[in-house]
């Protein structure tokens, strides 16, 4: 059936709340307003005040409350209205949630999911457009997930909620309304979980590997379509999880295609693309490369508001296609 990413996320939360009494959702506007982006639509009606809690606009406070609740055995889903606001709470995510299991030598695991839209939306300017994938992915103790499709959204969110450790779950506002075909058996299976830390080949191809996560997977698929018309076959790797990073799938693909481009919307420096380039370099697959890894990233500047500038700040399918041709030395 056709399912939007929003509905997939909503269904995943609904099912996991039904399955496990300890799972609850908290965040700004998640309850009575049905979520700022309506991702939690209907959940408050169904589960009530106890399980779906509207919080004041106090990220550091409610994230800390969520972490404390997880210490004490509950399974909070902590929604950030957007991940930009998670900066107010990032100390709780990193120092309280991610590090405690190790600091306690394996005593106190912290089963919590921090979720919400991440990265650029449309016309929301510099303070509301930051991608946090690379920051969070740098931190041991966290798992960092970023779904692309509705299948991803469903399977990865269910897995994240069931995961015993802190998961940062990076969604994309502009994908919420996008419908994807999801197999009926996946939808019907209440235990449909995707493994965290495993990438998915979204499209096989033999000439070049495109590595992406979240919305840029779609951009890569679009680029692959463009290029297919010219006889270039792209293999599109949807990372799904950026920590642990499924570098093996990337390496296998690169070993086959001998070319690799990474595509993300975050800033270039110390981005996910940088990490992939470095890991490829550190692996035997490196010697299989016919052309250096090319990173496509958000431009290295705060996001401008004006539409033309905004458009130029993010890699497009055209940019990807052009970079692929450059890598393959075709014109």
């Amino acid at each position: 059936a056709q399912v939007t990413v929003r509905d997939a996320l909503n269904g995943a939360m609904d099912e996991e709340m039904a399955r496990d009494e300890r799972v609850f959702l908290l965040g700004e506007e998640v309850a009575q307003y049905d979520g700022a982006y309506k991702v939690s639509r209907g959940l408050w009606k169904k589960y009530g005040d106890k399980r779906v809690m509207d919080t004041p606009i106090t990220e550091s406070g409610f994230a800390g409350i969520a972490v404390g609740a997880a210490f004490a055995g509950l399974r909070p889903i902590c929604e950030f209205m957007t991940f930009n606001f998670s900066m107010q709470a990032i100390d709780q995510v990193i120092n309280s949630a991610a590090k405690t299991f190790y600091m306690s030598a394996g005593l106190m695991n912290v089963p919590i999911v921090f979720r919400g839209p991440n990265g650029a939306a449309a016309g929301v300017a510099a303070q509301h457009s930051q991608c946090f994938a690379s920051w969070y992915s740098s931190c041991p103790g966290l798992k960092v997930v970023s779904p692309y499709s509705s299948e991803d959204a469903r399977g990865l969110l269910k897995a994240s909620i069931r995961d015993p450790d802190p998961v940062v779950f990076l969604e994309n506002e502009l994908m919420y309304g996008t419908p994807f075909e999801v197999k009926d058996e996946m939808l019907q299976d209440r235990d449909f979980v995707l493994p965290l830390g495993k990438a998915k080949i979204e499209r096989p191809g033999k000439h070049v590997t495109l590595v992406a996560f979240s919305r840029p997977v779609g951009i890569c698929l679009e680029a692959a379509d463009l290029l297919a018309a010219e006889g270039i076959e792209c293999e599109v790797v949807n990372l799904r999880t950026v920590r642990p990073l499924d570098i093996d799938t990337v390496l296998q693909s690169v070993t086959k295609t001998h070319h690799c481009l990474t595509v993300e919307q975050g800033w270039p420096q110390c981005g996910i693309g940088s990490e992939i380039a470095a890991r490829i370099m550190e692996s035997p697959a490196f010697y299989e490369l016919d052309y250096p890894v090319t990173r496509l990233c958000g431009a290295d500047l705060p996001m401008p508001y004006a539409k033309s500038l905004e458009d130029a700040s993010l890699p497009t399918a055209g940019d990807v296609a052009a970079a692929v041709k450059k890598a393959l030395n075709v014109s």
Partner: protein
Amino acid sequence: LSTEHTFETKPSLMHRAETEPSATVSLTRDDALKLYRRMQTIRRMETAAGNLYKEKAIRGFCHLYSGQEANCVGMKAALIEGDSVITAYRCHGWTYEMGAAPKEVLAELTGKVSGCARGKGGSMHMYAPNFYGGNGIVGAQCPMGAGIALAHKYNKTGNVCLTLYGDGAANQGQLFEAMNMAALWDLPVIFICENNHYGMGTAVSRSSHNTDYYTRGDLIQGIKVDGMDVLAVREATRWAAEQCRNGNGPVVMETETYRYSGHSMSDPGTSYRTRAEIQEVRQNRDPITSFRDKILGADLVTADELKEMDTEIRKEIDDAVHAAKTDPEIGMEHLSYDIYSDDLGHNMVRGVSPFVQLPHKVTGQAVNRK
């Protein structure tokens, strides 16, 4: 026509204050015209912004100030040269009050080069002299306002900084941190909570265990004023500013106000409150209508004068809308300009791929460079 009239305002509520503003307020004919014009201009400007949003000429967020005009207009009327202001994203009215033309506001909303941030900031990031934005992160402007006040004190300017936030933002921890330091250091800052009863879809009673925001500075003196009465707001602000100028700052001020539209344009604003509630405020407490009635009743102005002024304002806004629609966006080369306040030269800013290396230069004023 009289040249001056004295009005009775609703007395303010006070917290730990030794003095209080007078409830009896005098208004000159000139000021009556000025306050009316400014409130009406903001109302029309916001209505135009709403329409531009519906026409999809404005993207992203668009937080209208309609209903709250008496706040920025009354407060600004109490300021002296050099006083400064910082607020959150609901900043169109303030940007206008601090010196930007309606056209500069509307063109910023449509992302055009004639906007006050040349289209790079958008709805939430507007600036003007002594106006430090337009800030998109709830609560962040609160310590920043205290910092601006610190600069006033440091430079012995005798000025104050108005630091505005909403009832939702009022729960942010950094506000308490800022209040504590402001109190320890006697900073000339007025923390102003514009209580419009909702933070997005959350009513104050669900966000704040104490909804008397003017008391939430703990030992800091507080005042609550009718935010729908521009004269009361002006008087309360004068009082608060005087406290600060006399070294008795900071002050916490709450204004009781209301927003007519949804939180941002995408919010219909009717799921968490009734249409009747909105209607009631519009009919009985509208800051402009009530002020109009007042000044007409006191013979400070004539209906014709106001009508004429309305026509002028409409014209000004129509022109601004036209410009906002037809002006161009800033040139593409500006994509990589004004990231730092030094020219860095060629190939200094990476575009979306390693093959796109852009030049950097400074084209703005960089007011703090020297």
